[in-house]
């Protein structure tokens, strides 16, 4: 990667990718995810040739990175990324998607891309609710969590169970890498950044589809402070969505 150490920890402002301050609520970790993506793209020196595809939802604020970006419909990002990658095979192509975008309305497209083993990277921002529409039930809402559409708390009878996307992706032959990270502390940040870096490296090596799910705090819709939100992730989300790598192979198939 141009002789630059990919393990170097960068703490200063991003030179190339973070040229605009993205809009967001206080304590929203989607913006932190955006920063991680920017750091990895700069570390790997691919920000100038990468193409980002965002879905629709609060995660799409990550689309303000200084990278050529295309924003699609709700749920269509993996389809769009598929076409771009097939037409521009030497271009790093990644999607940034929310839990509703990727796992509810876009589930068919997501599974299609996984099954075809598209040589793209999918970054899933899992905040357990529909952030931009008021915090309603998402496929990843933890059991018991109250949302505007589960006012008594999510129950199996009405809302079913959360989807474990990283575990699901790992079962597909076309997938080379699948992992889940969280951003509770600097260590978690670095660990998650390492996952995102590996995911892009898998794509560069044309190893298969790479997928990283990142648990992301949504204090505004959770009605918690930013600090309480991190506690919520630790106590309510991580037991449902364990962290780690679920698949890491040299070549999918």
């Amino acid at each position, binding site marked *: 990667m141009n002789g630059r150490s990919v393990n170097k920890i960068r703490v200063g402002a991003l030179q190339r990718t973070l040229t605009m301050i993205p809009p967001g609520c206080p304590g929203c970790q989607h913006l932190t995810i955006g920063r991680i993506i920017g750091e990895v793209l700069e570390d790997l020196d691919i920000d100038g040739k990468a193409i980002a595809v965002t879905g629709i939802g609060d995660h799409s604020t990550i689309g303000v990175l200084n990278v050529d970006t295309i924003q699609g419909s709700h749920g269509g990002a993996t389809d769009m990324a598929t*076409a771009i990658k097939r037409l521009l095979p030497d271009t790093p192509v990644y999607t940034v998607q929310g839990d509703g975008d990727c796992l509810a309305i876009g589930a068919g497209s997501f599974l299609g891309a996984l099954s075809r083993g598209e040589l793209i990277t999918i970054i899933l921002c899992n905040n357990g609710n529909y952030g931009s529409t008021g915090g309603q039930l998402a496929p990843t809402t933890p059991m018991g969590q109250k949302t505007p559409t589960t006012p008594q708390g999510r129950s199996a009878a009405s809302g079913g169970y959360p989807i474990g996307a990283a575990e699901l992706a790992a079962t597909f032959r076309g997938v080379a890498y699948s992992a889940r990270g969280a951003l509770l502390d600097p260590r978690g940040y670095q660990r998650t950044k390492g996952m995102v870096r590996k995911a892009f490296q898998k794509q560069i090596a044309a190893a298969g589809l790479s997928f990283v799910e990142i648990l992301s705090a949504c204090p505004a819709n959770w009605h918690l402070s930013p600090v309480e939100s991190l506690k919520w992730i630790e106590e309510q989300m991580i037991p449902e969505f364990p962290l780690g790598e679920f698949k890491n192979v040299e070549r999918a198939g």
Partner: protein
Amino acid sequence: MANGRLMQGNEAVGWGALNAGCDGFFGYPITPQNEVPEWFAREFPSRGKVFVQSPSETAAIMMLYGGAGAGFRVMTSTSSPGWGLMQEGMSHLAAAELPCVIVLVQRGGPGQGSIRHAQMDYRCVTRTGGGGGYRNIVLAPASVQEVHDLVQLAFHLADKYRNPVVVLSDGILGLIGETVDLKPLDFGPLPDKDWAVRGRDRQKDVVRRYVHSCPSTAPPPCGYPDYVSWLEHTGHKYQAIEDSEIRYEAYESEDADLLLVAYGYASRVSKEAIMAARAEGIRVGLVRPITLWPFPFQVLRDKAGRGCSFLVVEDSLGQMVEDVRTAAGGEAPVHFLGLLSRHLPTDGGMILPDRVYEEIRRLV
């Protein structure tokens, strides 16, 4: 015809796309257009071009969004139920002002309908099915040769106006065999796609591109300062298309007292009936709209003003006839011969030339 070659209408879609320099095809099997994706699967990868069988028509149209947004000539094809699934994507493509081509091989509807021919999608194609009041350019071929040629024109118009273009075929045109001259057509120069995403450092100005379908909350496409200015621009664009892209064929129409109006397979049937009627000295002709949107209102309006009456032949319960009535503006009678005049009451029934001839005789 040096390059003359016998083929089905559905295969002519592929050859037309190839001659137009199409880069990628994304589609889902559905009858009666399966020969289209099968042609691309067979012919495109070996030429270094992209073919992807999408997991749905919803996905296919989003693949077009991605491919078109990266500046490539991309297309899909489908039949009526699949067209319904594409409507959200069509609205997004219109909002992002992305050029692409959609071939719709009509079958009977509504719902699952039939897997045989029909002309029952005129209304939803010309009026558009997604939210937001955008426009599709709609081209209607009437022969296998014209399928081949209009697919090429479709790519040109799509790039010229940064707008999706629909080629409206049907189950008969798709499956009949005719000889085609596989000639690439040159429609003139086109602007650079300097708006496309291709990687920031690959842009001439090394400035990031942002392609999106949300003109209210992000900077609108084409450099317009705000949402309403951009909407105004799209209105002007649609007006420019109406002003300069209307195409139609006039057949034996000069002295006609009765003018048939038909597109697609129904226009072929109508021509045969007109030939038979002309042989008996009946002054009957045809106006065949080639662009269904923009629709040739003015030519029909002029005919109505000169005392012509109309007979719309359309294999549906009556859709295009609404536009003909609008054109006639109450100044001329508009008759209709539709699906209820098929020779069989099943999905295999057709409006046959004898029936059209009979109706001409009845009216004059």
